[in-house]
């Protein structure tokens, strides 16, 4: 008996340990996920710049330009950048050498130069210095994301480019600064020019459309089912239907969007409008279920009090019950919206997975969304895109976590009430 008791206690400790281990494992996974993404993504917030000493003559701008007005727009800035590079490293002569030199700066350098001159055309004819974006390969090496002593075969920069990099570094013409481009630009083929602004706007528009549709529809459905609907087979069917919709795979909603909204209604492809509509249908069950629970938890006394004062059922609901249920409704809405914000699969079905450079200005412009941008970048081979993917994930996580946190706080506050 004593021995058995000992065994039983040992089994007890073992069982408890397993439980603790399960939680520990989950938390370790969560921690590892965040740690690796932060570690991978941190680099994307810094961007290397290279100083170029320019001297531009008016001749650079007049060559072959007939139109007077936009001579500043049309000039071949790429050539000017290349010339400045050649002047900085006159020892590189052959075509191959020059090409590897050009690859040190981003193709976006030309736009930077144009922007600077647009702001101050007086610089033409003077000596000035401009800090242009380094190419992604140079950027990765300077930031230390790629080890400098790696064998040439495993490096994107060859030995010549490495010595150029070191020369720039030694003469103080290389520096790292905060990567504003990442937050202000749309997508790009060049990692150093790519940003999440376009995707973020696409997400914003989609989520706004989603909210504008799902919130009123969800709340109205909840109110109807909870307050007015007769308990019959039809409403029973609606209820079962809603709980089933909540568990339909998101990609199926994408198929619906493709077949209905695009093929039958002829709405434009890749538009946040359609994305928002699909997301709204997905979010609807979440909002309905949460709203019903919130309405249900309002004490019947409130309703009775309203009726006692002569309010009509509709007045009782909209003046008294709904305002009291609002925190719960909002909690559900926020959680649903957070889901919608992180959803990718249905958007792939409706063409929001295109290469879109321009920032969308309205809900009909072609756009991607943040999670889709993550998906697109994750497939890009350039190593610099990997850190941008992780950085975009960080931005996405900040938003979803903030939303979930708000919901949790709201729920806590609301729970205390009754």
């Amino acid at each position, binding site marked *: *008996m004593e021995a*058995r*008791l000992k065994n*039983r*206690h040992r089994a007890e400790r073992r069982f408890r340990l397993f439980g603790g281990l399960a939680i520990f494992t989950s938390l370790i996974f969560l921690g590892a996920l965040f740690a690796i993404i932060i570690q991978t993504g941190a680099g994307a917030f810094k961007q290397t710049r290279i100083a170029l000493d320019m001297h531009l003559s008016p001749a650079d701008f007049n060559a072959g330009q007939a139109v007077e007005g936009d001579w500043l727009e049309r000039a071949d800035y790429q050539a000017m950048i290349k010339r400045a590079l050649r002047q900085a490293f006159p020892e590189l002569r052959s075509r191959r050498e020059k090409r590897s030199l050009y690859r040190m700066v981003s193709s976006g350098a030309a736009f930077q130069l144009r922007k600077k001159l647009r702001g101050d055309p007086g610089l033409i004819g003077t000596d000035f210095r401009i800090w242009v974006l380094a190419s992604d390969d140079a950027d990765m090496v300077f930031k230390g994301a790629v080890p400098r002593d790696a064998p040439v075969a495993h490096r994107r920069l060859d030995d010549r480019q490495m010595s150029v990099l070191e020369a720039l570094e030694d003469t103080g013409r290389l520096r790292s600064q905060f990567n504003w481009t990442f937050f202000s630009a749309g997508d790009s083929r060049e990692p150093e020019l790519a940003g999440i602004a376009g995707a973020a706007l696409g997400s914003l528009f989609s989520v706004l459309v989603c909210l504008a549709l799902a919130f009123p529809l969800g709340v109205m459905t909840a109110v109807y089912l909870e307050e007015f609907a007769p308990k019959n087979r039809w409403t029973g069917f609606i209820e079962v239907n809603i709980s089933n919709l909540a568990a339909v795979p998101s990609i199926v909603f994408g198929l619906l969007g493709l077949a209905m909204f695009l093929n039958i209604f002829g709405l434009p492809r890749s538009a946040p409008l359609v994305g928002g509509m699909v997301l709204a249908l997905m979010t609807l069950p979440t909002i309905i279920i949460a709203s019903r629970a919130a309405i249900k938890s309002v004490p019947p006394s409130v309703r009775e009090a309203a009726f006692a004062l002569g309010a009509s059922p509709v007045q009782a609901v909209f003046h008294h019950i709904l305002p009291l249920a609002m925190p719960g409704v909002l909690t559900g809405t926020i959680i649903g919206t957070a889901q919608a914000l992180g959803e990718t699969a249905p958007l792939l079905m409706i063409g929001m997975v295109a290469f879109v450079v321009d920032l969308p200005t309205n809900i009909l412009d072609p756009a991607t969304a943040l999670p889709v941008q993550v998906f697109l970048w994750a497939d890009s081979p350039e190593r610099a895109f990997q850190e941008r993917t992780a950085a975009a994930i960080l931005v996405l996580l900040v938003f979803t976590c903030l939303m979930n946190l708000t919901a949790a706080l709201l729920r806590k506050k609301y729970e205390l009430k009754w």
Partner: protein
Amino acid sequence: MAHAPTLTQVAEIPNSATIGLLGDNPLALLKHPEARTGKPAKMTSRGLSVSYANKPALHDVDLDIPVNRVTALIGPSGCGKTTYIRCLNRMNDIIDTCRVEGSVTHDGEDIYAPDQDVVRLRTRVGMVFQKPNPFPKSIYDNTAYGPRIHGMTGSRDEERALVLDSLRRAGLLDEVRDRLDAPGTSLSGGQQQRLCIARAIAVRPEVILMDEPCSALDPIATARIEELIAALKQDYTIVIVTHSMQQARRLSDKTAFFHLGRLVEQGNTEDVFEAPQDGRTRDYVMGRIG
């Protein structure tokens, strides 16, 4: 485990101990004056105080539980009697915010000592709860649950014998003999409670704690449980919490009256009811507070 009757002893208990043969008037036995005289204490508490989340529930209780007798705990709702009974097999440990001070001994052993094994304690001090709570298993499995986890029986036959015996001693066997595989929850309330008693007996405890075992039952079922308790007294030390003064009076040898978390009075049942020393006890037994 030395104090628990062995299986052979159990088997030797004459059939007269079972309710069926106990006869027309088991309560007559209880009324016999000799039955009530001093027996040694099976359990004692000294200076026992309990609080939940810093709200005191029980103050400084000194009480002796005599062996092979029925001790009734009475008092108005919220007086601490349930808290007290749950201290006797440390069921209060389950509640995170509960703090217990003072000492409770069982055969002279401090049950709150750090090296005390709660699992062993609870096999010695069994418990029956206010509401019948059979497991979602068959009647047989319900009864066999305790013996199985404690490894009390070697063979299946031995286990079956113990289950049947426990059911018989709980006065349930005749009613369920044909449906031992039916779920425990399919029984009526009174039967369920007797099943819970059978389940408790099967572990062969020394003490059985009963927390208002009849409060959820109708009068007929209550009468059967009372008969059962009277019969079980021969082999077990029984502590019962009850709301019903009549029940306490009918069943118990010793009565302790709790009020507002304090033990106000304890003594032979007759004394407590006939000649209470304390004014509050008097008011309560006369139905003025409660």
